[in-house]
């Protein structure tokens, strides 16, 4: 008798639980859609407007089913945006390669040598990565002017290397720490030198972290505006430095701006989604996991 009753209540509770599950799913879907609408809505609007004829940009509500129109893209490509995107690719790639080369070695040393005090290295990470760029803008600009380095790749890449180097070292040091010391020691005993250990053992074992570091440095460099604005002009101007040029004194070229922004965001969005596991770490200066 009691067992029958218990079975009944179990059945009921299971029923209630599954009803509760349906509600939970519905709520979860609703909340998720709201979040995505808020996070992606503005970006989707931007891309839609980039494909809209200029005279129709101001229409609200937005006509989502209007046929796509590429005239803004045609115009923006004529306005040298491709050159700035090529500049961005060149500058970001060079920075990434230099930072990786320097910080793989230094990160390895820090991982295997750094003692208790190495957390103080974080001050350098924070200072270079998260300090306001504008503080040193004047001296850096004056030095670049005197050395004739304004609007050359050297000055801007040098700044970006400094901007990312401490961060790169810190990140790689963390990834290298996860490589078991025993593997490295065994390789040393087998007769490899430390360089060979780094290249053949440590980096391949931490390859996901190395790629993540590269992607993060690339995104940061790609998106940087202030130093590019100060140190480059027409010749080496990166993608973000083109954006203010759409804001004329009397008229804003919204259509061109949306088209340019849509082209310029492809790289960071694709890289960002690929590296999503490490984004929190990357954007928090390597301070969180």
């Amino acid at each position: 008798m009691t067992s029958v009753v218990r079975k009944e209540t179990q059945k009921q509770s299971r029923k209630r639980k599954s009803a509760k599950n349906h509600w939970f799913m519905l709520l979860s879907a609703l909340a998720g859609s709201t979040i995505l609408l808020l996070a992606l809505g503005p970006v989707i609007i931007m891309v839609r407007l980039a494909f809209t004829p200029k005279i129709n940009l101001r229409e609200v509500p937005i006509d989502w089913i209007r046929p796509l129109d590429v005239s803004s893209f045609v115009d923006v490509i004529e306005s040298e945006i491709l050159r700035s995107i090529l500049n961005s690719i060149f500058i970001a790639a060079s920075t990434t390669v230099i930072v990786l080369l320097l910080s793989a070695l230094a990160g390895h040393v820090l991982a295997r040598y750094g003692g208790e005090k190495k957390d103080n290295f974080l001050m350098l990470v924070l200072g270079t990565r998260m300090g306001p760029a504008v503080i040193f803008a004047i001296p850096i600009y004056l030095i670049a002017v005197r050395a004739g380095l304004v609007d050359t790749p050297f000055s801007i890449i040098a700044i970006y290397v400094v901007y990312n180097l401490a961060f790169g070292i810190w990140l790689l040091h963390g990834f290298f720490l996860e490589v078991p010391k025993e593997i490295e020691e065994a390789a040393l005993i087998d007769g490899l030198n430390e360089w060979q250990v780094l290249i053949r053992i440590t980096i391949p074992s931490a390859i996901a972290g190395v790629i993540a570091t590269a992607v993060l440095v690339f995104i940061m460099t790609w998106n940087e505006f202030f130093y590019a604005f100060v140190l480059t002009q027409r010749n080496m101007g990166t993608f973000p430095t083109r954006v203010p040029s759409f804001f004329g004194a009397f008229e804003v070229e919204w259509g061109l701006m949306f088209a340019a922004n849509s082209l310029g965001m492809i790289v960071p969005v694709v890289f960002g989604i690929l590296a999503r596991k490490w984004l929190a770490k990357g954007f928090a200066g390597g301070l969180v996991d």
Partner: protein
Amino acid sequence: MKISRGYFLTGVIPVAIVFTTILIFPMVYVLYLMFRDDSLLDPNSSSFVGLTNFERALQDARFWEALLHSGIFSAVSLLVSIPLGILLAIYLSSQGLFPRIVRTLVIVPMVLAPLVVGSLFRFLLDSNSVIPWIGASLGIQLPPLLSTPGLALVTISIVDAWQWTPLVGIILYSGIQALNPSVYEAAKLDGATRFQEVIHIVLPQLRPLLVLVVLIRFMDSFREFDKVFIMSGGGPGTSSETLPVYLWRFSFQYLEVGYSAAVGFLMLILISVVSALIVKFFKGVRSTSE
């Protein structure tokens, strides 16, 4: 692995050279310029003036206003992004397919260039544009947000929060994932509801991480230049001029090199204090998680 002296030096020396030439040199240059009245507009003005630049900054009402604006900017950005980020983290750590999809796509705002975000929202906020239209269809008549003194600063700050709420969300989400699951199970046995579980068990354990996130967000919003530059340029008037924009104006528009160096130095001190706090709390987070 025990490393040799040679390997240590090949690792450290290039990095040391890069930092000393490209970082220390400008730093020393700031220390030199900040005691001088150099101006690029006036080639004759190049003399040692002692602490005059600092006196001038501390007596300049516009400097204090810029500091206040920076404070308001950071405060609003944090007050919006931290609570919403906590809610986002709780959502991301719930079960099911939707949170997984959101986890992938919600990161899009934070990988966009701040300049792209700023220019996009400048359009969306423009009169007769999308956001005023949404307001009007909800029956709210929005004032011109970017051209009203006072409102411009707060509006840009909310846009900053829009970009960085996902960062708060995913940092705290990773923090929640790292918590020891046995704690929840004990709570569940005690009959705790999901809501009680979050309030009484998850959040208190995340507190050290939360402090760290607040400091990181503070530092990020404090240095924000791009959005203010492209959305209002510090205007109308100087009503949304934050400290970085103030410094940029004196550096690259008024070309007062000596004075700018002094203001930069003051900012550097402020940032160093915050950095030291961040490092302290970082150690705290690590020692509790181990």
